[in-house]
């Protein structure tokens, strides 16, 4: 079977056409596994290309995004791949185009819910994070559909603002599970001295949250604020008592421990 043309040998317009076909899985790509998503093969290939070809590839991706933002057309699988690719390229111009598109979702009925969610997810993952005001406007468009991504977007820019979204989340256990996971990731990224206050603030709003949503979030919050006394590890506590005698107590100086030191 004859070998394919190298992308490095294509001109600027041919590269864009090649990219469009590659995003649809119609071009050979260096895939890790046979079923890997095309955008991952394109990203792998991109690293091997000449600088000028790489520039043309990124420009081609930008043109494809521009076209999508203008007409909202394209099959779901292709658009998901395109959005994933530009998300990885982190092009500021692409971010701005997608932001404008998202702000005008109500005027773009031809764009499916699935693709709207993919656009918003790309904006959550892309840098720089969008301002809280943007996410507030998105939330107003469709609170039910967009709440999860709005929470994600807010957590990326302003965790304190994000906490205020919690009472407005859909009242489902699944939404609560997703929120707990996102709060946990946000907690991981906070400076240690801010974590306790973060969890306390979340606990303070839980009383305003739906009953099905609140369960997983409360369980998470409680796990972060659980007391660190003997009841946290009863096995260890029992072993210490046996070894050191009944006078041992948490957070107190014990002569026997000092002698051991």
């Amino acid at each position: 079977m004859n070998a394919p043309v190298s992308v490095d040998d294509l001109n600027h317009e041919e590269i864009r056409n090649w990219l469009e076909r590659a995003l649809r899985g119609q071009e050979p790509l260096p895939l890790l596994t046979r079923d890997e998503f095309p955008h991952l093969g394109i990203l792998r290939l991109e690293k091997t290309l000449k600088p000028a070809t790489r520039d043309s590839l990124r420009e081609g991706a930008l043109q494809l995004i521009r076209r999508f933002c203008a007409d909202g057309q394209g099959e779901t699988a292709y658009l998901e791949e395109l959005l994933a690719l530009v998300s990885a390229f982190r092009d500021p111009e692409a971010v701005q185009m997608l932001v404008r598109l998202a702000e005008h979702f109500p005027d773009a009925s031809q764009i499916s819910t699935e693709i709207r969610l993919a656009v918003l997810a790309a904006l959550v993952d892309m840098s720089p994070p969008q301002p809280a005001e943007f996410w507030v406007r998105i939330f107003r468009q469709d609170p039910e559909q967009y709440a999860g991504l709005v929470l994600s977007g807010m957590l990326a820019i302003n965790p304190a603002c994000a906490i205020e979204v919690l009472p407005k989340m859909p009242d489902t256990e699944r939404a609560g599970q997703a929120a707990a996971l996102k709060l946990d990731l946000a907690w991981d990224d906070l400076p240690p001295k801010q974590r306790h206050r973060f969890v306390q603030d979340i606990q303070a709003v839980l009383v305003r949250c739906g009953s099905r949503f609140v369960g997983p979030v409360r369980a998470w919050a409680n796990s972060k604020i659980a007391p660190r006394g003997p009841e946290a590890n009863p096995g260890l506590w029992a072993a210490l008592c046996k070894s050191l005698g009944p006078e041992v107590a948490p957070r107190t100086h014990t002569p026997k421990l000092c002698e051991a030191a």
Partner: protein
Amino acid sequence: MPLSAYQRALADLTDHARQAVEEVFTAGLTGSTHCQISRNIADETALSTADFTSLLEVFAAQLARGDLPLSAWQTACRAHKRKGRVIPAADCPATLGRAKGLDHHAAAIARASHGDLTKEQAKKLLLKYSGSIDPDGFETFLREALLGDYLVWATFNPVDAKANPFDRLPRTHHGICTALGLGPYTSSNTLVILAWNHADSGSPPLHRPTVADAEDYPYYRPRPEADAPWGLTEPLSPNLDKLEPQPEVVMPETTSRGLRLPFHVIQA
């Protein structure tokens, strides 16, 4: 000398179609990836004559329409998926497994979540819960993700069909890629290794892979035994640890509802 499966299929084509097919498969550059694909086609034993003929007929028809060879081959392959023999239900392994790129599986989790998790969030969660038998609420989203897309390539332990197939392989990036024949461009790609219970996944049919399932993936190798129930990987060179070829099967796209915990992230 008896005709190969490919030669028998060629013989059933019209003269025009046979000429078009032979021109493509006998031309080409030595050492190219696509020479390997041509060799795989010539060596394939897993397709019935009827299916092989049909595959080549569609290929020839696409060439006649003006498609480039690789595009024509892809179209023909996509119309002939899962044509290899099916493993009888009683002989199906209880546990199967596969390796995926971390970014791939994170994207799969995100897409299955319908906006509940983004790809970067899923990636962080995969790294966080690697090795955990209790991934909390993440388990909901893990089990909704597809094990693979369009077609899942899987392996298993032929000696102990209930065991996790990765338990007998080196738990290293290099070892897993070598044993499973996962291409040379994987050195910077973090892997996720997944194992699942076949029955809990809905017992999808398990097929011996064929060149049509592999399409243009150059690391597939057809197995010479026509009556073998499953395929075998070709461990990557140099294979200094002398890892054995691993069984391989293909199955339809399936969710991870039968996933066995823990899964593992394997860094390069």
